[in-house]
């Protein structure tokens, strides 16, 4: 479109984390005076790419070129001085300092060696006026809304004469009117010649504001389109258009049993609204969606960690109250959380002690733990789930991701659950262990357990689910049976595009 030189180009960027290749040969040109949207599924590599350009990660290969000259970006501060600024989704601010200092910290205006506060306030006021926002530069940042904190970060970037703004999902935490305000400012900056790289999961926003759209999938650049010459359907197809790999498929059952878990109009104000579904014995129901769909929040509500503000939970046809996780366990539920290192395991603790945490009553006599029984249980489950470990006395943190996940699973299976909630059960797990976890899930379903799985990985969703429920920003967007679900349909619902002719 433009004959201009690009402001910033990346060529052949490669990034690996351990053995996983997260970015492969990424090329991207960003021109002055344009808003360039970067879209893709969770884990497609968008954030990694922005972190490389803004100096948070070094690339493992490839070049970054600023105005025709190859550069290295050793740190975020260096990036800022080159005019590249990253606006974070959750702004990184100093809550106890005032707005002006948050804008200028580290380079406050001085007269001699003394900071010239009066001048700093004047300058801050001017920057905020330029942005068209009414924020008092003298007030403390604590208590400002996320939108206002973003504006403070923007003002900070502008004070450095940033020519390139990288905005990582800036709209995720904003209200619609705040998004509208942000877009007005983004357009004005673009018209002044700033180059903006905009990341968003909301396709309607992307089409509203972007001049170009680049699509990432599984760490590769799939293509670039002009919004006017494209459609949301095309973008969705580009985002998910991968051949389905040969993942383990759930064994089909002829007949599901009775509804085990049912929720009706589950709502927690400000988080999610009117969630209703049922999971039958032997069935795997998947909650699909993108980051910010609030699926984990629903799971936590069901399990009593953050009880919902309204709605009903039914188990085996009986209405129940689940005020806390202890009751949830008594009702036959088990919840394997997403971040097993943070919520699922006590990493320094021995494997057997980790496993028996939910069933301490059963492995103790008169209040004293029977440690040989703990060890025996651990060895039993080691065999059942094929956990690679030296012995029950090993610390949990010594295990690989997949084996840690198996320990968490056995911990909850020890409680003999009827309902199993799995939150991203294979995240960060290598491909072999992934197949084993999938196999195990299928087996558990076969034994009559009702499984509610949360997964952001479309191939996994399609391979393992009997039914798929798609959520977006706290609302149910659609429900698909195993036969009718395709990657395109699920993704279209997840980005808020319900009608899609397949």
């Amino acid at each position, binding site marked *: 479109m433009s004959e201009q030189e690009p402001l910033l180009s990346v060529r052949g960027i490669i990034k690996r984390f351990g053995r996983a290749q997260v970015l492969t040969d990424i090329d991207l040109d960003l021109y002055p005076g344009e808003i360039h949207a970067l879209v893709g599924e969770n884990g497609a590599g968008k954030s990694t790419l922005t972190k490389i350009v803004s100096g948070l990660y070094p690339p493992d290969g490839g070049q970054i070129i600023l105005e025709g000259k190859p550069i290295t970006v050793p740190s975020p501060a260096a990036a*800022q001085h080159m005019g590249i600024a990253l606006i974070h989704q959750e702004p*990184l601010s*100093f809550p106890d300092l005032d707005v002006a200092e948050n804008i200028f910290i*580290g380079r406050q205006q001085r007269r001699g060696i*003394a900071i010239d506060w009066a001048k700093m306030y004047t300058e801050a006021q001017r920057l905020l006026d330029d942005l068209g926002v009414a924020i008092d530069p003298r007030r403390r940042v604590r208590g400002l*809304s996320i939108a206002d904190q973003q504006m403070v970060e923007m003002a900070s970037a502008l004070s450095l004469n940033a020519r390139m703004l990288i905005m990582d999902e800036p709209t995720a935490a904003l209200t619609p009117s705040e998004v509208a305000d942000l877009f007005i400012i983004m357009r004005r900056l673009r018209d002044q010649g700033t180059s903006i790289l905009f990341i968003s999961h909301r396709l309607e926003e992307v089409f509203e504001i972007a001049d170009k759209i680049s699509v990432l999938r599984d760490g590769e650049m799939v293509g670039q389109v002009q919004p006017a010459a494209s459609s949301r359907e095309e973008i969705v197809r580009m985002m998910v258009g991968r051949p389905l790999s040969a993942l383990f498929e759930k064994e089909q059952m002829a007949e599901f049993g009775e509804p085990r878990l049912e929720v009706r109009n589950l709502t927690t104000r400000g988080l999610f609204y009117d969630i209703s579904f049922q999971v039958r014995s032997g069935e795997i129901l998947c909650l699909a969606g993108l980051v910010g769909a609030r699926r984990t929040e629903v799971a936590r509500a069901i399990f009593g960690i953050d009880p919902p503000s309204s709605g009903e939970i039914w188990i085996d046809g009986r209405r129940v109250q689940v005020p806390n996780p202890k009751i949830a366990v008594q009702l036959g539920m088990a919840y394997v959380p997403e971040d097993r290192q943070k919520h699922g395991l006590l990493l320094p603790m021995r494997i057997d002690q980790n496993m028996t945490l939910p069933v301490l009553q059963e492995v103790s006599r008169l209040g004293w733990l029977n440690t040989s029984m703990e060890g025996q249980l651990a060895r039993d489950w080691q065999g059942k789930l094929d956990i690679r470990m030296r012995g029950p006395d090993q610390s949990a943190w010594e295990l690989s991701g997949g084996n840690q996940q198996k320990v968490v699973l056995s911990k909850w299976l020890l409680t003999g659950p009827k309902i199993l909630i799995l939150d991203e059960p294979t995240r960060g797990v290598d491909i072999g262990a992934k197949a084993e976890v999938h196999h195990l899930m299928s087996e558990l379903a076969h034994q009559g357990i009702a499984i509610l799985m949360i997964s952001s990985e479309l191939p996994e969703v399609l391979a393992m689910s009997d039914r798929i429920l798609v959520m977006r920003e706290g609302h149910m967007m659609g429900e698909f049976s195993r036969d009718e679900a395709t990657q395109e349909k699920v993704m279209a619902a997840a980005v808020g595009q319900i009608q899609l002719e397949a």
Partner: protein
Amino acid sequence: MTSQAQTMNTSRPSNVATILAKFRETGILIFLAVLVIIATLVERRFFSLHNFENILLDISILAIVAAGETMVIISRNIDISVGSSLGLCAIVVGLMFKFNPGVPIIVGLFLGVLLGAVLGSVNGTLVTQFRVPPLIATLGTLSIYRGLVFLSSGGRQVDPNDIPPDLIAMARVGPLGIPWIVIVALLISVLVGLFLRYTHLGRDIYAVGGNPVAARLRGIGVNRVVFLTYLFAGALAGLAGVLYAGRYGTVNPADAGVGFELTVIAATVIGGTNILGGSGTILGTVLGSLLLGVLGNVLAITNVSGFYQKFAQGLVILLAVIIDAIIHNQLQSRR
């Protein structure tokens, strides 16, 4: 995380921190006024120039050390070795005077500051380079420095006739009848206050304590800032050590600065410095020192048993922090 984002979105722009800071300083002043009135009613001797001079002398050393501690705590760290540092500098400088009679006191002051800076640098290095948690690092040096006090002195105290009369006079005379120690404390407080308010390094201390991750991303050398706050705290403890020798005319290894770190931290926290870092002022710390000084004096002069002094000090700390928490919660929930 999301729920927090939502509530923050709907919040009115209230300014909890500002209100708290203002409340804290006026709060202490009111408390002080009440104390003074009660003390005067109970004991006439309290309200006299001589007694006020005593109070100021008592708190001068406290205020100097607390100024350094305030910087450390604002940066989201803590230094519990300051009492031992004070003791070590007092004894070393005392011994220096003993074996080199006639050395000008300025040399002693300089030596104290230098030695204190070295002791502070050790703390800073442990925390920033060896990543020892601040409480543990300075717990270790608290003990090591105290050990050095005994080793260097052989357990013997430095006697009044070993300490130069000029140094002892610093606690007695000065311009306008104000003892030099008080002048030095005032000067240090003003300087540190200006430093924290008007220099890049001073503001960086707040930034590092308020949000270390963001500070690093903004290009602030977090380790450098933390190291320097420990160095400053040590240097001020060293200066205070020399003044201690002058004020008390003797340095006893078994009690010079022993347990002083607790009083120092108390003054800082009562003065409104957030123990979790990111906020605090020297004015607050000076008022906190004053409050503790007046409290101690009132109890002593009204012949309340010395045993009650620690007890009262503890009550004041808890009271200050609890009132803070109550106000903070109310401001939060009123949104």
